[in-house]
């Protein structure tokens, strides 16, 4: 640009010719215009070559012929304005080349001044800018095209600078919001975003700006009419060669319909889940091919105390009771491999560690190809039912066992239908055979022993009539002819109206007990007899033993006396007689004889000094006790005992055992006295009566009698072949020790009456 400027100012031009040559060789088109507006008076060779105009044809306004008609006026105006303004002017124009094609040129014209500064002409240089111009044109077209493309995108596009301001937005965006571009370029657009989503959007952008990564989010944007719709925003950063972010390209996609569909789906899912969760059981969706749990309801989570996330990696096997696990695993395998519908009961461990029984039932869900996809499993808590069932079963087993053990059967008699129900145990006890009419009451009555039947039947009928409890024991004749013993009880069951509906009862097989009792009674009787005998023997032995002991005591010195006597005689009769030895023997006889006398004396004093334990006693009781001992004995001997005891007899003071022995001895003596009697009824009468301050007891027999009653009390007096003769002596000493008397009198007709007296306790006190 400088050379054309130099030339007009070149008053120091060294050579006009050199300059002219230079101008002609410039690779640009140059011309010089006249100040009078008469066109150009010079064009350089480049111009001529380009336009192909002959030199003269270009001069004046001839060159304008090569300018595109559309541009001629603008170039003319430009050239004239150089002159009028005296300043440089530029314009663009199309200049026809010699071959007829137009190319764009930049026309730059500068005024020519003389030394005084007067404009004397102008110079113009025309630079070929066609290539640039065309490039500009192409660019403009491409931008236009892009614009069209952007505008035609069925979404909203915005190009933002790094400060977040919009550089460009597409038509769709403007139309959606119904606002001019300037609002986006300069205004705050955050009020377009749904208030609920704003924070999320800002956060997404802050994140994207700071990291320079792609930004992506969903948010609601308010349409021009105020309606919010869901948009998916996706923004990508554009970077320069230095990797600096220049701007963001953001595409907004309307996803409102999808979003609504999703929401609908979610709502329906929620509804579904709500339904599932509200089912009072556990529900699990199990993949039919992998066996994995796909979905469970809240019940499952609550029961196991796990979150849905935990459930994903959950192997349920650790929640199944170890005892049930093998069957459950086997059943699941059948379900997975063979498609067998799962159905079983198993125990599952609750979150607190407690196992409960559950019934699991699976329903198959198949896809359109009828392919089994998953099992819908309903897991119902049956624990209470199960435990109730178990309890019932146990209780039933228990009841049966107890019935068996206790040999007790249950029965029911329905009054209205006249039907009997009976438990297995009762049937066993009655030895019921198949075919027996066990619902008929007559069958049961028929089994009762003939001797008991009428009684049992009338009892039962009375209980039915009176609606009262029934109780009866009876023998039953069993099928095999054996006899059993049953003890039955029953309770009437009344309805609200107080009418008898049925009898519920039990019957216990008491056969063993009955047999044992019978046996026991027999044994007991035998034992009792034995006891009586023993007791009597013991009592009698007391006196007998005493007498034997006394006898032994007396017999020893007696034996010594006799032996010494013999020895003495022998020593005397020897030849010669041994007097010394005989005297020794005789001396021993004397000593031993004295010894025997001492024994007798000791025995007497023994009874005199017998310590008496004095307590108030009912003498009648004592008599009755003794008679109880002797009843059997008397009966055996054919002796009748006539007892007559005064009822209001005051107590006596004395020693129970000694008085018993006294009475016993007297009665035994009386019985003995009747031993030889054959011509009359043997009888012993025992009486008690009051005699002043004493109680008097008489024992009277109708036996052989005594010639001299008093002698019987002498020691060693006896009428009996094996008697010791001490009994009555002892008896008298007992009576004496009690401050009483023992006497004997001969009866007018037969026998003897022994009487003794004992002071009454009350009188003693006085």
């Amino acid at each position: 640009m400088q050379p054309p400027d130099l030339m007009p100012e070149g008053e120091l031009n060294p050579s006009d010719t050199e300059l002219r040559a230079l101008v002609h060789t410039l690779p640009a088109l140059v011309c010089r215009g006249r100040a009078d507006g008469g066109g150009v008076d010079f064009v350089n060779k480049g111009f001529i070559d380009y336009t192909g105009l002959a030199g003269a044809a270009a001069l004046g306004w001839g060159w304008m012929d090569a300018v595109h008609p559309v541009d001629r006026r603008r170039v003319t105006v430009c050239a004239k304005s150089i002159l009028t303004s005296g300043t440089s002017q530029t314009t663009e124009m199309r200049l026809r080349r010699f071959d007829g094609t137009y190319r764009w040129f930049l026309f730059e014209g500068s005024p020519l001044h003389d030394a005084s500064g007067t404009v004397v002409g102008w110079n113009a240089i025309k630079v070929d800018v066609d290539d640039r111009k065309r490039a500009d044109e192409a660019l403009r077209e491409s931008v236009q095209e892009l614009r069209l493309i952007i505008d035609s995108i069925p979404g909203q596009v915005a190009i933002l600078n790094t400060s977040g301001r919009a550089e460009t937005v597409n038509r769709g965006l403007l139309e959606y919001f119904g606002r001019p571009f300037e609002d986006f370029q300069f205004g705050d657009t955050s009020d377009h975003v749904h208030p609920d989503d704003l924070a999320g959007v800002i956060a997404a952008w802050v994140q994207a700006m700071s990291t320079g990564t792609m930004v992506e989010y969903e948010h609601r944007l308010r349409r021009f009419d105020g309606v919010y719709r869901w948009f998916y925003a996706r923004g990508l950063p554009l970077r320069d060669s230095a990797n600096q972010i220049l701007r963001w390209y953001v595409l907004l996609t309307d996803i409102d319909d999808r979003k609504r569909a999703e929401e609908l789906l979610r709502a329906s899912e929620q509804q579904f889940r709500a339904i599932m969760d509200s089912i009072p059981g556990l529900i699990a969706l199990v993949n039919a091919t992998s066996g994995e749990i796909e979905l469970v309801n809240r019940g499952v989570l609550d029961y196991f105390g796990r979150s849905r996330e935990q459930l994903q990696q959950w192997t349920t096997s650790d929640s199944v009771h170890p005892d049930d696990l093998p069957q459950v695993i086997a059943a699941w395998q059948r379900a997975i491999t063979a498609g067998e519908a799962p159905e079983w009961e198993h125990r599952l461990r609750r979150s607190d560690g407690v196992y409960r029984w559950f019934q699991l039932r699976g329903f198959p869900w198949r896809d359109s190809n009828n392919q089994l996809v998953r099992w819908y499993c309903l897991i119902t808590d049956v624990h209470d039912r199960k435990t109730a069932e178990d309890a019932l079963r146990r209780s039933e087993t228990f009841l049966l066992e107890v019935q068996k053990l206790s040999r007790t059967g249950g029965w029911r008699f329905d009054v209205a239908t006249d039907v009997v129900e009976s438990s297995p145990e009762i049937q066993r006890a009655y030895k019921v055979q198949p075919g027996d009419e066990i619902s008929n009451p007559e069958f049961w009555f028929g089994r009762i022993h003939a001797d008991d039947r009428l009684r049992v039947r009338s009892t039962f009928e009375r209980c039915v009539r009176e609606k009262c409890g029934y109780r009866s024991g009876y023998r039953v004749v069993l099928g095999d002819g054996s006899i059993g013993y049953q003890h039955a009880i029953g309770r009437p069951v009344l309805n609200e109206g107080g009418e008898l509906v049925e009898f519920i009862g039990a019957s216990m097989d008491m056969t063993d007990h009955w047999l044992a009792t019978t046996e026991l009674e027999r044994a007991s009787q035998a034992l009792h007899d034995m006891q009586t005998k023993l007791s009597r023997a013991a009592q009698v032995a007391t006196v007998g033993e005493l007498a034997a002991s006394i006898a032994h005591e007396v017999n020893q010195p007696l034996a010594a006396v006799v032996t010494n006597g013999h020895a003495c005689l022998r020593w005397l009769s020897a030849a010669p007689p041994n007097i010394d030895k005989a005297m020794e023997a005789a001396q021993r006889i004397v000593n031993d004889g004295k010894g025997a006398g001492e024994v007798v004396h000791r025995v007497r004093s023994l009874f005199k000094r017998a310590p008496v334990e004095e307590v108030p006693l009912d003498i009648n009781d004592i008599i009755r006790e003794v008679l109880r001992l002797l009843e059997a004995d008397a009966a055996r001997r054919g002796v009748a005992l006539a007892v007559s005891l005064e009822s209001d007899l005051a107590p006596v003071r004395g020693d129970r055992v000694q008085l018993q022995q006294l009475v016993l001895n007297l009665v035994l003596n009386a019985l003995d006295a009747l031993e030889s009697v054959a011509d009359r009824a043997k009888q012993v009468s025992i009486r008690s009566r009051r005699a002043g301050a004493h109680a008097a007891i008489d024992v009277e027999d109708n036996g052989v009698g005594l010639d001299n009653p008093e002698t019987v009390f002498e020691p060693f007096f006896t009428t009996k072949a094996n008697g010791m003769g001490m009994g009555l002596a002892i008896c008298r000493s007992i009576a004496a020790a009690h401050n009483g008397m023992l006497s004997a009198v001969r009866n007018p007709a037969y026998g003897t009456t022994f009487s003794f007296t004992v002071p009454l306790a009350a009188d003693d006190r006085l």
Partner: protein
Amino acid sequence: MTSERPIVFVVDDDSRVREALSSLLASAGFDTALFGSASEFLEADKPDAPACLVLDLELPGTSGLELQRELADRDAPPIVFITGHGDIPSSVRAMKAGAVEFLSKPFDDEELLTAIDAAIAIDRTNRLKRSEQAEVRRRYERLTPREREVLTFVVSGFANKQTASALGTSEITIGVHRGQIMRKMGARSLAELVRLADKLGIPPPEPSTK
């Protein structure tokens, strides 16, 4: 030895009875030894003479019957029981167990002395049997095992020939054995040898040896 003076043992817990018996028996010419209880009797050293035991039935500690049982297999002297109040069962038991007499106190002197005489006579016989048997046993001990074997055949009535064939030896050898047996056993005849063998309780020969 049969001429030894007999002795009467008295066991009674009553000293008066013991003394009286001692006097009575002395008057009848018997030596006596007195004991107050069964254990005293058992523990005492007793002379080796014909004897008799006068035993009280009722004794403190070991009773008369118990002592009798205890003495049963000890070559003890025969027993005369005396009792203060004897009963039938006791007397039956005592007599069954070999008592000579059962006397109730007080007893007659003749009864007692007769019983004691009888008892001593029995004891004399027993003692003689025992000493004879001991002598025979002593002689039998001198026989060789082979002679003892031959003896069983001889006393069972086998002839020498039969015995020889049964024992697988010669008749002459048996004859020699037989001579030795007769000499060692002090038998003057076959009959005497048989009697001696009987005392020893020699069994007949084993049937398997014919």
